């Protein structure tokens, strides 16, 4: 057992209102620079939709992530031989228009325009060429199903849905959507790290944050191809690749990442998970249907005395183990089994988990009338507005069973709370769904509390970074004891 700690996240999609505040918070802190204008380390997509960069999920185009070759796990677009072959022309990179051409507006014109018959306008100006452009795409161009014929129709996750099912989704009364905020998953089996020819990308030992060493990066851009989530970006100004750093300077000083701090819907949770690094390879190379279960097996129970003992032997601080025990992520992912990784079929073992959206059918049109009555209070899970297959393609590598269980649990919590606060439902309509997913009332209440009424300290449990210890690893602090302090910048004047 090789126990390590990993900072992981849970995004509760039912709570996301699609306001993009997270993206703006991130942009203002990290990517508001020359060469980084087009980057959105954090972005919010509408599903169904093609996302940003367009069709990033289609690995036939972008060749990201891992695949099983024979029995061995290998990178789809990079690796030793393939990497060498493609090194100098890098055939599968997204082009700038797959992201979008960043622009700003010529605001000065509003003030400096000469007096005329027309109201002056601020024309859009490209941030790459500096010329006037007509924006034709943007990071959230297909937000809220806009242009759904062009974008939502081309969603890669429709791949296993029958034409009939797909058609049903685009009927006006049945049309539905949900938001999908995305950022770097700080994967356990990161393809970007494996693909980097310069060895510039690394996964931090103490908390598992994946970072790019800007001094070692040689702009091969293999990480851009390799990351199946397209969350590594090339900065054309500095000639280096950049990615989400999980605001590690904030984490180390006990603050939470900017995107999570600013989240209006409070959908984001952050905490430590203890995991067994020895199991990574086996979990990443198992058959697709088992991927989710095998990944969840890697994460360990932080209350298990054996796990605690092994963790301490591996140098994990008591404060980290304590944080792992309080981790909201552990509760959502392992204890309650409500959160699932995004696209586990890419086999990177992402550490960002999503509670899938519950989109029950509230009404349907029958004989020309808008019918809101149904057998049960909420329509059956199987009749959700989003086909189960679609959610399964997103969160469980096509395994509908996994999604169904999660949605049933979510529904059971709702029915239970309805019963507690209103009490208008027949007894069996509440107890049967709870029994079906074997959930007791206390668990349902706990899920309800952490979902709806969590305190800031419950949503984010950050382990102490122990920077004082990190300092001692780099230099002996006793060496300077008794020395002359910081010295003088200007020599002190002596005498009178």
């Amino acid at each position: 057992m090789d126990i390590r700690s990993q900072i992981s996240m849970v995004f509760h999609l039912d709570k996301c209102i699609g306001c993009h505040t997270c993206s703006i918070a991130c942009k203002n802190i990290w990517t508001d620079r020359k060469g980084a204008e087009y980057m959105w380390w954090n972005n919010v997509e509408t599903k169904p939709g093609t996302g940003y960069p367009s069709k990033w999920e289609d690995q036939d185009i972008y060749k990201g992530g891992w695949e099983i070759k024979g029995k061995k796990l290998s990178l789809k677009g990079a690796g030793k031989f393939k990497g060498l072959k493609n090194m100098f022309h890098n055939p599968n990179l997204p082009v700038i228009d797959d992201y979008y051409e960043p622009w700003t507006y010529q605001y000065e014109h509003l003030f400096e325009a000469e007096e005329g018959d027309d109201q002056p306008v601020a024309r859009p100006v490209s941030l790459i060429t500096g010329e006037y452009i007509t924006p034709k795409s943007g990071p959230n161009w297909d937000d809220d199903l806009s242009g759904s014929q062009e974008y939502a129709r081309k969603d890669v996750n429709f791949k296993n849905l029958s034409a009939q099912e797909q058609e049903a989704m685009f009927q006006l009364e049945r049309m539905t959507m949900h938001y999908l905020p995305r950022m770097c998953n700080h994967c356990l089996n990161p393809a970007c790290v494996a693909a980097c020819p310069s060895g510039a990308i690394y996964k931090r030992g103490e908390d598992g944050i994946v970072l790019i060493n800007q001094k070692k990066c040689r702009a091969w851009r293999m990480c851009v191809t390799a990351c199946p989530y397209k969350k590594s970006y090339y900065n054309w100004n500095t000639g280096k690749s950049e990615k989400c750093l999980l605001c590690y300077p904030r984490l180390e000083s006990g603050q939470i990442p900017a995107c999570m701090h600013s989240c209006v819907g409070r959908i984001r949770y952050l905490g430590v998970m203890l995991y067994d690094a020895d199991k990574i390879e086996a979990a990443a190379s198992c058959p697709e249907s088992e991927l989710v279960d095998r990944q969840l097996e890697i994460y360990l129970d932080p209350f298990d005395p054996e796990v605690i003992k092994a963790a301490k032997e591996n140098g994990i601080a008591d404060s980290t183990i304590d944080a792992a025990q309080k981790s909201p992520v552990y509760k959502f992912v392992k204890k309650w089994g409500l959160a699932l990784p995004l696209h586990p079929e890419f086999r990177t073992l992402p550490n960002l988990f999503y509670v899938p959206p519950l989109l029950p059918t509230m009404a349907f049109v029958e004989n020309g009338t808008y019918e809101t009555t149904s057998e049960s209070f909420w329509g059956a899970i199987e009749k959700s507005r989003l086909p189960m297959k679609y959610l399964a393609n997103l969160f469980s590598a096509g395994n509908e069973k996994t999604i169904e269980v999660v949605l049933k649990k979510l529904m059971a919590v709702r029915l239970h709370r309805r019963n507690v606060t209103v009490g208008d439902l027949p007894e069996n309509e509440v107890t049967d769904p709870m029994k079906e997913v074997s959930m007791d009332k206390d668990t349902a209440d706990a899920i309800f509390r952490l979902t709806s009424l969590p305190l800031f300290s419950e949503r984010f449990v950050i382990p102490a970074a122990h920077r004082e210890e990190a300092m001692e690893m780099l230099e002996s602090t006793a060496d300077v004891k008794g020395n002359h302090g910081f010295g003088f910048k200007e020599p002190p004047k002596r005498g009178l």
Partner: protein
Amino acid sequence: MNKNLMNSILLIVGIFLFTIGRADEGEQLFKTTCAACHTIGKGRLVGPDLSGINQKRSKEWLVPFIKSSTTVIKSGDTDAVAIFKEYNSIMMPDVAYSEAQIVSILNYISSDISDGAQEQTVITDILSGTTLENIKVGLLLFSGKQPFTNEGPACVGCHKVKDERIFSSGTLAKDLTESYDILGSAGIAAVIKSPPFPVMTAAFTNHDLTEEEVINVTAYLKNVSEERYYQRPTDFSTTFAFFGLVVFVTIFMSTVLLYFKRKKFPVNREILDRPSKVIN
């Protein structure tokens, strides 16, 4: 009075020394530059024997001819053209000497007549007593496989010879295949020892060949001259050009193939390419 005497003596000594100095300068210049091809009273070498040249030609004709024979020949001077033709149309290299220096050389030539007559030395072929071993070493030296003792550049860097044993050679300077026929062993040795050609002079300044090396290289050049009718060296120039073309086409084609494989267009190309309804 005393002072005047001293001044006179000094002046006389000065003039004497100056004259001697001038004579010395002429001798030195002749030996470093002219002796490679010319003798004074020892018969013709590459160029004519120069004894009595001052009586035969006027100074006005000699000085410009020595300075730049090519200019004089090109100007159509009949005497100059005749001499040029007589001596196998070998150009005499231009020298960067002042008129005074050339005159000093001419003075040396006229003063040397008697010397040449007195000594009557027999010129012995420097190649007498050379063996196949000398030719072998000469080949190694010529081709640069064995470096010169004083680190001079290898001959093959600039010169070409018709020899199967030499793979490729420079084209900057003359083809030396027939050098022995034109210059003879003494001529070759003289040219190597004190090259009259500006580029060669610069190349071998402070990198003189040893006496033995001169003999070896000369022996090799003689061998080349003798063997030249039996040599069929492969001409690689067309082969090289052909292979160059093959490599170029291969690289070009693979670039083209890789380019076609590359993702060049955005996935939403057909949307982005639609004509804009906004007038810019």
